[in-house]
């Protein structure tokens, strides 16, 4: 399916490639090391940046060809029929839950923060039975904690709960 977004993605990738290409000029050169070398630390990023620009053009060109090969009304229909739009509200809630968990992970400790995280996600995704919510929110972090901290000897932050 051809979408308008495909063109925006091509432009975005082209800008990204150009950014990599020109920003590479800021990479410091170590003259002592690179004196005898033809290729320096800027060489490879520039090569890959320009390849990205080239590929973004190809992608845009392919979109153009596909668009041309279809009847114009069909192209319009594609846009109208595009799959359900991004649910930004759901993204916002999910993002907020993840960000709060990210910042509470170390201060509160793994067990407590994960309990709240699982609880919030389960409610967000539609679990309503209180016993299922409490049971899963407590059991899952506890099992993971035992597995990583006790059995595998990996460190998970203890935070407020010291044991």
């Amino acid at each position: 399916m051809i979408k308008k977004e495909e063109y925006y993605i091509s432009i975005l990738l082209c800008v990204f490639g150009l950014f990599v290409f020109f920003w590479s000029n800021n990479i410091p050169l170590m003259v002592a090391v690179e004196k005898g070398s033809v290729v320096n630390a800027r060489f490879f990023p520039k090569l890959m940046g320009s390849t990205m620009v080239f590929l973004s053009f190809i992608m845009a060109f392919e979109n153009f060809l596909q668009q041309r090969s279809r009847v114009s009304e069909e192209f319009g229909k594609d846009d109208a029929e595009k799959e359900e739009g991004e649910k930004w509200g759901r993204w916002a809630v999910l993002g907020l839950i993840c960000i709060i968990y990210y910042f509470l992970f170390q201060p509160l400790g793994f067990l407590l923060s994960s309990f709240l995280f699982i609880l919030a996600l389960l409610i967000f995704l539609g679990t309503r039975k209180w016993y299922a919510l409490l049971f899963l929110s407590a059991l899952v972090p506890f099992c993971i904690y035992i597995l990583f901290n006790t059995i595998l000897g990996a460190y998970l932050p203890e935070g407020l709960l010291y044991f």
Partner: protein
Amino acid sequence: MPFVEQLAQGFVDIFHLSNILAITIGVLTGISVGALPGLTATMAVAIMTPITFSLSPDIGINLLLGVFVGGIYGGSIPAILLRTPGTPSAIATLLDGYPMTQKGQAGQALYMALFASVCGGIISALVLMTVAPQLAKVALKFGPAEYFGLTIFGISIISSVAGKRMVKGLITGIFGILLSIVGMDWVTGVPRFTFGSTDMLGGFSLIPVLIGVFAASEVFHQTQHTIVKGATAFRAQIDKTYIRFREMKQYLVTIIRSGLIGTFIGIVPGTGGPIAAFLAYSEAKRFSKHPEKFGKGAPEGVAAAESANNATTGGTLVPMLTLGIPGDAVTAVLVGAFMIQGLQPGPLLFVQHGRTVFALFAGLFVANIILFIIGVLGLRYFAKAANVPSRIQAPIILLLCFVGSYTVANSMVDVGMMLAMGVVGYFMRKYEFPGAPLVIGLILGPIVEKSLRQSLTTSHGDWMIFLQSPICAIFLFLTCVSILWPIIKQRRERRK
């Protein structure tokens, strides 16, 4: 040490309680995750990788091999019962598996899938044991120019066949290479694209990127789409009829042929389970005395697809172990696990860690035997895993993503990286950019740059060095073919 002795040593090493336990846990986890619709074997291996950090290489890698083997097989369970493939490799399985369930033969279909998977896996393990050491000997002679040709070929073929549009695969591959540039330059030690952050001096850690692209993105996808409460749940009881030995024997030729197809398809980078399964399925149909029964519940169809997709497990390990080129997404994740254990896949692995490699060969063999035992004992219980609703799965997987990324270096930077790559992975999936080339670009990027700069420094900037080496020239020629062939094929089809 001669080959046979090394192999025998591998089997002696693997028959330790800890190794057998690790493989068993791996297979159990793999089947359970694979049986959950939408969750792939790649995701199962990505989530389990952090668990192996504190284990010894033998135990850790064998655990992941168990997950790999179990995960590929697990995908067949919901394909047969619910007409929803657990993994992309199981799409061909549902063509005959689901009609068998509709005819009330769910148990027979599941046991046929199990038997065929185990046979396919064992065939591929045997091929891996014999082919890999020989290929590694050849690869040992490679210099920087040859490595450049090889890695460029690896990235290009995977990028050109992954996904629906080749250009998108190539863009993703280049994006992965660009991510690998971030951090300190390996020659001069100067920072590149770190924007003054000391946290980024080490570059993008592989494991958080893997977990983000393959696991977190899937959770984000599940949370963004309407979660149906058990609408497709399988309620019927699986009949207790085990498939009879006579029936197994009847399809043995199909199973062996499909196993060999799967193994050799698996060896070619960029192919993998789905292609192998469909090819084996169509070959089985072509050779069958009753091709008309295919698609209507023929056990032979299930046997062909399952034998082939499980046979790719050993096949994909051949280029990964011998050349350091991951042939698909799962092996890309396995490369990450190897590197965490201090093992760099490639020909030198056979020289420096020969014992571990042969233990791994034996491990793959044993994993298939364990798969058979676990499958026979617990098939009915695994079938229930397919009914776990995604509203319960999603929070648990996301929590494992956080924990897995954090335990890489006890750093929240890695967790942030995982979340960012999860969002990138989600949008990549939405706009049909394949995930595997990104990870493969990230893994092979440093090798491409190193070999390119070494070669050009040696030749004083003369690019002809790549054509003067015959091996490199062949790889570059194959690279051109891999990029141009899909274009030519597409044009021909359009003309027709």
